[in-house]
């Protein structure tokens, strides 16, 4: 299963795509980091893959 992540450009915290997709727009979960992360920050092919296989990233 392809595992997609995004790294916060401000603090380096890595966030899984399922977390980004769940929130769509979120404050970086790195403690004290004010960066705003968006699902749209993922590359287009990664977003498409995730959305086509969305059920597999849920539990």
């Amino acid at each position: 299963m392809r595992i997609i992540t995004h790294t916060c450009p401000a603090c380096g915290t890595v966030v899984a795509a399922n977390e980004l997709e769940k929130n769509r727009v979120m404050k970086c979960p790195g403690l004290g980091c004010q960066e705003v992360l968006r699902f749209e920050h993922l590359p287009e092919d990664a977003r498409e893959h995730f959305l086509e296989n969305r059920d597999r990233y849920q539990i």
Partner: protein
Amino acid sequence: MKGVLLSGGTGSRLRPITHTGPKQLVPVANKPVLEYAIEDLKEAGITEIGVILGNKGRDEIQELLGDGSEYGVDITYIVQGNPLGLAHAAGCAKDFVGDDDFVMYLGDNILKSGVIELVKSFEAGDYGAGIALQEVDDPQAFGIADVDNEGNVTELIEKPDEPPTNLALIGMYVFSPAVFDAINDLEPSWRGELEITDAIQDLLEDDYEIDSHVVTGWWKDTGKPEDILEANRLVLEDTKLNTAGVVEDGAETDGRIGLADSSVIEDGAVVRGPVSIAENTTIKSGTYVGPYTSIGANSTLEDIHIENSVVIGDSEITANGRIVDSLLGRNANVESADDLLPEGRRLVVGENSQLKL
């Protein structure tokens, strides 16, 4: 070599303690379980550590570990979110790991012997992965590895009816980056998770050699209250304890006692080690603290008899009674009902609590 420390999970078997925090921060001998893992990794020369966070306790874990500098390591946080399995957690660490090998360490486990030998054994050959094993009495209840004469793993079997060995996987692994290709090829199991044992099996089928290292010292998964007590007992048995605090004249002490310098054992109290007493805690007259007990910071004990127990901290325990084999959460208070009418116990008990009266 890097480290990937798994700190997710719901901690459901440790409720109600985990209603207010992650299981990896429950203290054993007055130190959060997670700190033992960080120390083990550092001892093995691993100072770049990715800490995997789930949905619970993210801020608390980051507050404790910070950037890792207090521990002499460099920490990167990796938010897995949904608990999609150990292989998913490892997969989330791919960018962090890069082309390095890495140790994967379950953050709620404590291992007496650390991971030095596991890492050495892996580095002595050209392996796709290395797994830690331990001999168990009931192999039917575990994931079991079959190994050849050289110690190379030949097969992994989950809870076999007819186990070929009694060597159980204990949740400590070393991986080469080849595992990421195996994870990429995985499908979720019947329980919807990406299983790390499936990834290792794929490595085997791709002709990678898998090293095994049999752990001889104790190992504890601290997932349940009784496991915390057992781990506390094992760690107190092995740890050097320093009596830095005040033991008043007239206090009776025996055995090894860890007493923080701001804590006091007062005249008339009895403490029999091994015991660990954290900062700003007072053991008052009439109290008995027995072996294998850890008392957390900012607590007061008076008149109570307590042994083989863990008090996490910020507690007032002043009842005249016996507490044994118990785990008391932060801010839990136990007071006397002797002067109250009508007679009887008065309880404010949270969801999922367990009491034996």
